[in-house]
C-alpha cells in the first residue's frame, strides 16, 4: 500500500531535522561544547523559525577576567571614589615595588649596548706647536686624547683620507685628555701639553715618548688651565686658568706638588675667562686673550679646589701663590672679549697696562695667541670668527685688526690654536672645526689658501666638535639631542 504524498513529505522533514540535530550535537561534543544545557539551546536554535523580529538566540556569561577595577562601574559623581581608586592603585604599585625591593635583586643589564652612538672617529686638533730643530710639528687632539707628531712639511694630498702621524702619545697612562695648549722646548724637544678642566695636571713628554706611556714629568696645576707660554731666559712657565681668572707662573722645570712662583689674580686685573697667552721677553710684556665671562673673587677667600682622580681636593690650599676659588655671589657679568696686556712679571691684583676690546676688533672667542716681537704683531686664533686677527703689539682700545686672514679658501674653521714658526716664516693654525691644521706665510691676509694642510680625516666628513660632553638633553619636539661642551 503506498504512503500518501503529504505524509511522506512530513516524515522526510522530520528525518532531516533529526540528522541536523545529530550533526550539531556531534560538533558540540567534539569541540567541547557538550553540556546538556548547551545542547538544548542548540537544538532550540535549530528549531527556531524566523519571526520577522530580533530573537535572543543564546546567552553566555562574560569571562571572570573582565571583572575587576578596570571595568568596575563608578557613578559619574564619584570623584572621591575615583581618587580612592587611584590611591589604592598607587598603594598597590608601591607594595609591588616594596616586594621587588624586598627581593634585593637588581636586574643586571650591564651588557646592554647602545642602539646609537654619536662619536667623531677622527682627531680634532686643538693646539699646535713647531719643533724647528727636528723639523716636526706637534698637535694636541681633543677628541681621541692624543699628542700627534708629524713631519713639519707634511701635506695631505687631496685624495688621501688623512696623514698618518709619525708618532702618537695616547692612553690612560699618559693622563692626556682634553688638551688645549702646547709648548716645545727648543733645545730638548720636550713636549709640554696642557690639560684643561678634566685633569688638573700638566704633562711633559720627551720627544722620544710614544704610545701609552706615563709622562716624564707632571705638575699639579690649578683647575681649568688653558694657555701656556715659557720664558726661557728666566726659566719660568706661564699658565692661564679659566675658572679662577688667573695667570699662574711656575718654574719651567717645576714638578709634582711644587707651588707657583707668582700669581696674577684679582678684581682689578680684568681677566675674564682667560685663554691664550703670549709673552714678549724683549719688552717684558705678557698678553692674554679673554672670552669675557667675568665674576669677582672674594678677597681672602678659600683656595681653588683641584680634582684628583675626579675627586675634589683641597690639598693645594696651603700652597703659596695658589689661586683663590671663592666667587663673590651675584657678581657675574658679561664683558666684551679682549686682549689684556701686563708687565711680564705682574702679580697680585694688577690692572692691565692696555686692553684691546670692542666691536671693531672682530674678536669672538679669541683663543690661541702668539706674539711676533720683531714685527711688533699679535696673532689671535679667533674661534667663532673662523679667522686669524693680527694687531699691533701697541694696540689699545676699540681698534680694528691691521690684518685679517679669513674666508673659505683659508680653510680656517674654529681655529683654537696657533703657532709662529719664525725660523721658517710660517704661521700655523689648529682648526677644531674641520680636522685640519693649516699653514700660511707669516703676513698672509684675506682669503688666502694655506701653503700646506695636514688632515686627520676626509674633508667631506663633518667635525662634530664634541669636547667633554657632560650633560645631555633631548628636544622631543625636534627629536634632537642637545650636547653642550
Amino acid at each position: 500500500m503506498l504512503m500518501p504524498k503529504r505524509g511522506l513529505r512530513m516524515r522526510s522533514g522530520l528525518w532531516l531535522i533529526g540528522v541536523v540535530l545529530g550533526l550539531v550535537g556531534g560538533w558540540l561534543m567534539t569541540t567541547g561544547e557538550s553540556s546538556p544545557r548547551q545542547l538544548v539551546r542548540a537544538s532550540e536554535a535549530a528549531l527556531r523559525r524566523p519571526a520577522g523580529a530580533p530573537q535572543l538566540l543564546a546567552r553566555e556569561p562574560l569571562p571572570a577576567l573582565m571583572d575587576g577595577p578596570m571595568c568596575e562601574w563608578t557613578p559619574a559623581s564619584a570623584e572621591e571614589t575615583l581618587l580612592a581608586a587611584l590611591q589604592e592603585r598607587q598603594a598597590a604599585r608601591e607594595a609591588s615595588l616594596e616586594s621587588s625591593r624586598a627581593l634585593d635583586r637588581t636586574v643586571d643589564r650591564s651588557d646592554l649596548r647602545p642602539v646609537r652612538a654619536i662619536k667623531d672617529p677622527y682627531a680634532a686638533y686643538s693646539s699646535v706647536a713647531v719643533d724647528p730643530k727636528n723639523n716636526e710639528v706637534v698637535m694636541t687632539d681633543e677628541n681621541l686624547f692624543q699628542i700627534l707628531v708629524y713631519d713639519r712639511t707634511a701635506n695631505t694630498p687631496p685624495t688621501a683620507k688623512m696623514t698618518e702621524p709619525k708618532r702618537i702619545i695616547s692612553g690612560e697612562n699618559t693622563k692626556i685628555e682634553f688638551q688645549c695648549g702646547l709648548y716645545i722646548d727648543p733645545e730638548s724637544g720636550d713636549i709640554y701639553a696642557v690639560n684643561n678642566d678634566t685633569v688638573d695636571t700638566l704633562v711633559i713628554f720627551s720627544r722620544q715618548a710614544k704610545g701609552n706611556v706615563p709622562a716624564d714629568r707632571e705638575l699639579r696645576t690649578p683647575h681649568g688651565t688653558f694657555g701656556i707660554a715659557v720664558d726661557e731666559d728666566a726659566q719660568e712657565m706661564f699658565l692661564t686658568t679659566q675658572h679662577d681668572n688667573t695667570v699662574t707662573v711656575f718654574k719651567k722645570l717645576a714638578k709634582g706638588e711644587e707651588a707657583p712662583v707668582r700669581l696674577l689674580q684679582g678684581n682689578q686685573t680684568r681677566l675674564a675667562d682667560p685663554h691664550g697667552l703670549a709673552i714678549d721677553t724683549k719688552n717684558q710684556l705678557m698678553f692674554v686673550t679673554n672670552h669675557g665671562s667675568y665674576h669677582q673673587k672674594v678677597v681672602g677667600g678659600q683656595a681653588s679646589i683641584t680634582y684628583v682622580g675626579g675627586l675634589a681636593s683641597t690639598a693645594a690650599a696651603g700652597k703659596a701663590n695658589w689661586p683663590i676659588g671663592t666667587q663673590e655671589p651675584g657678581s657675574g657679568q658679561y664683558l666684551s672679549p679682549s686682549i689684556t696686556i701686563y708687565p711680564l712679571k705682574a702679580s697680585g691684583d694688577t690692572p692691565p697696562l692696555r686692553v684691546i676690546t670692542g666691536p671693531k676688533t672682530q674678536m669672538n672667542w679669541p683663543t690661541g695667541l702668539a706674539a711676533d716681537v720683531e714685527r711688533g704683531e699679535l696673532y689671535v686664533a679667533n674661534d667663532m670668527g673662523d679667522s686669524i686677527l693680527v694687531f699691533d703689539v701697541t694696540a689699545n682700545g676699540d681698534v680694528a685688526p691691521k690684518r685679517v686672514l679669513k674666508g673659505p679658501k683659508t680653510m680656517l674653521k674654529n681655529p683654537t690654536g696657533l703657532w709662529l714658526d719664525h725660523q721658517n716664516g710660517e704661521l700655523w693654525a689648529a682648526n677644531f672645526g674641520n680636522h685640519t691644521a693649516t699653514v700660511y706665510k707669516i703676513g698672509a691676509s684675506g682669503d688666502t689658501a694655506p701653503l700646506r694642510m695636514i688632515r686627520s680625516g676626509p674633508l667631506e666628513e663633518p667635525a662634530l666638535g664634541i669636547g667633554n660632553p657632560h650633560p645631555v638633553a633631548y628636544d622631543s619636539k625636534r627629536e634632537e639631542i642637545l650636547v653642550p661642551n
Partner: protein
Amino acid sequence: MHSIVYDEINDEYTVPQPFAQALLTFRGGASGEEAPIRIIQGPHTELAEPDRLAVDNINNEIYVPLDLDKKILVFPRGVGGDVAPIRVLKGPDTTIGAEAVAIDTVHNLLVATGVGDDGLKLRIFNRTASGNTKPLRLIGGKNSRFGRLGGPIAVYSPKGWIIATVRGPGALASEEAFMGIWSVMDDGDVPPRWTIGGPKGVFRMPRGVAIDAKNKSIIASDKRLNSVLTFYFPEAF
C-alpha cells in the same frame, strides 16, 4: 657647561653659566649667534658658580644646586634679570649635598644628590621644601651602589624613576662605571632596580642622562669615550 634642560612645554632650553654666574634660557631650535631670550644674573640672585640646574615646566620653577654652599636656590621660570630666589633649601637638617638636582612633577618631589654631612646620597624632599627641612628619604650605602656621581641626574616622573650614572673608582675611566635606576620611593641602603651599560659594559666615564619617553630610550654621555650613547630601554617606561 655641566647642565642643560629642555622644556618641551615652552620649547626652551636652559643652561647655567658658572663663569658669569648666570642662567641662560634659549628658544628651542636656537642656533649660531642667537642671544638667549632670558638671563637670570645679578646681585640679588645669590648665584655663585652655578654648575647644574633642573627646570620644572609644570610648576614653572628653576632649581639651582650650589654645592660649595650646600644649598638649592629656586627661581621662577619665565622671568629674567636680577631676580632673587623664591625659595632656598639650606640648613644642617637637610644634610644636603648639592651637586645635582631633578624634579618629579607627578609625585611632587625634589631629588638632590651630592656629598653631604652623611656622605654621598640621593636625598628626596617635597618639591616645595624650603629652609632647614629634613629629607623625606635617603638612598645611599653599599647596597645602593650609588657612589661617585657621574653627572646630572634625571627623573622619569610617571614612574618615579631616578636615573643617575656612577663613574666608578678610576681617575680617568673605569670598567665599574654604570647607569643605575632607583625609585623616588626607595629609602635607605637599597639596590638599584637596574644597572645598565656596566659594570664591565660599554661605559668608561658616564656623565649626564636624558630621557626620550616617546621612543622608550635613555641617552647618556661618556667623557672618556667622548661620545653620546642612546640605549633602548622599554622596561623603564
